[in-house]
């Protein structure tokens, strides 16, 4: 009985020695998952290469090649999106819009659903752990979701070349933001402003990494609300979600701790993208054949990405993502300008 208890406790003990078989297994699990992902891609990519060859020679590849390719691409994007600290939609729209044959209307509809499904899946865990604050998210989400409807309507009404150029400019702007933005893990907020006080925008959570109990409050609430109006327009228009903009505003302007900013951004996204997604659904711009493989691929990839986060240097992934975004942003911009059709 005692031996069994000891075995169980050893199995669940933190990994401190590489000699323990269970420790090695736990340490290698993310890499195993990554190897499985690569093996899957190795099986599928030759088929896509053949399809591309067929398309170049004038004969159409079979229909199933595209959703399969979309699944694999979304899966890969999901893997890198989490360690890079950006939403899947930020990668999805410029890459799929540039390298797949779907019209940008359908790509943006699918991009919003990818961002929505990811935000909804993460939401409950964030709320239960206190890493996302519903009180903080609600006022910001209300303004951002109202303006995201305007953005979605504008995006669907504008000429596609103009949307491509705006998208390219926006993605290149995100790259600049990723380069220059500083992050503050626990910003100093001496006193909440009157609006934050009236809405009781404060709370507490436990930082799982440090074990520290963090009390938080925010300031400059009115300025944050105005910025979220603009963020909503961009999210609805581009279909790339807005986690890249939410987090700096919550963290650097409002003074929310970094982890709370990231968690609350997910909650805001789940509401903002719901509103914008309805505009695309009503316009008929959501094709299940494009949206479903993307959503499933991205969610499965994000699970592996979350594991890789523990073992992969985030700096390496961040550089990789910046390079991919630079390429995709430039491609979208040049495509919109008619330079690189």
């Amino acid at each position, binding site marked *: 009985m005692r031996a069994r208890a000891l075995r169980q406790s050893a199995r669940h003990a933190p990994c401190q020695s590489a000699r323990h078989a269970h420790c090695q297994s736990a340490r290698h699990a993310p890499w195993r998952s990554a190897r499985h992902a690569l093996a899957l891609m190795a099986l599928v990519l030759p088929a896509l290469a053949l399809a591309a060859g067929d398309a170049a020679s004038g004969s159409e590849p079979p*229909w199933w090649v595209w959703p399969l390719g979309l699944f694999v691409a979304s899966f890969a994007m999901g893997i890198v999106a989490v360690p890079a600290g950006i939403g899947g939609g930020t990668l999805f729209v410029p890459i799929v819009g540039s390298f797949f044959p779907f*019209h940008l209307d359908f790509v943006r509809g699918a991009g919003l659903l990818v961002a929505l499904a990811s935000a909804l899946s993460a939401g409950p865990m964030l709320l239960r752990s206190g890493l996302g604050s519903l009180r903080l998210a609600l006022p910001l989400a209300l303004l951002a979701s109202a303006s995201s409807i305007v953005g979605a309507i504008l995006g669907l009404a504008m000429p596609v070349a103009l949307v491509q150029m705006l998208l390219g400019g926006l993605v290149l702007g995100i790259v600049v933001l990723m380069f220059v933005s500083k992050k503050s893990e626990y910003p100093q907020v001496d006193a909440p402003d009157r609006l934050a006080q009236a809405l009781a925008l404060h709370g507490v959570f436990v930082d799982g990494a440090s074990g520290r109990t963090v009390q938080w409050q925010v300031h400059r609430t009115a300025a944050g609300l105005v910025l979220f109006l603009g963020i909503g327009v961009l999210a609805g228009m581009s279909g790339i979600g807005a986690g890249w903009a939410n987090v700096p505003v919550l963290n650097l302007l409002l003074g929310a701790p970094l982890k709370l900013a990231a968690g609350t951004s997910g909650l805001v996204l789940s*509401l903002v993208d719901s*509103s914008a997604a309805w505009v695309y659904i009503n316009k008929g*711009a959501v094709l299940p054949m494009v949206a479903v493989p993307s959503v499933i691929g991205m969610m499965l990839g994000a699970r592996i990405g979350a594991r890789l986060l523990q073992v992969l240097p985030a700096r390496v992934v961040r550089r990789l993502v910046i390079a991919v975004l630079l390429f995709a942003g430039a491609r979208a911009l040049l495509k919109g300008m008619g330079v690189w059709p």
Partner: protein
Amino acid sequence: MPPAPDAVAQPAEQLRYARLLDWGTRIGLLVLLASFAAYVLGLAEAHVAPARLPQLWQHPVGRYLELTDSPSGWGWLALVHRGDIAGLVGIAILAGCSVLALLALVPLYLRRGERAFVVLCIAEVAVVLLAASGLLAGGH
């Protein structure tokens, strides 16, 4: 020993919202997967057959709807028995599940006398419903 991440109790409305969002997302994804499997495996009749899509999906949405005689707005409900259109049910559940979760918070906030948050919840529901209503026009 450091406290566990869930050691600090979160507000009741936050936990209720989390529970409802969790269920809404699970149901939405399940419906999405089942309908998509029925569509691509040919188990349900399709409004637009998968094999036709490569000739259609490069068009803007307006032209696509014309070429496929597909409905816009809530017209898809009349064709929900078709495999491809049925996928929109799962998508609608995902895009609409926050509405029920927000409405479930109203009694909690009312009981606590937090009128500002009652207004915020109802206003957010109104925004999502306005977007879902299809009353807001736009497009190419």
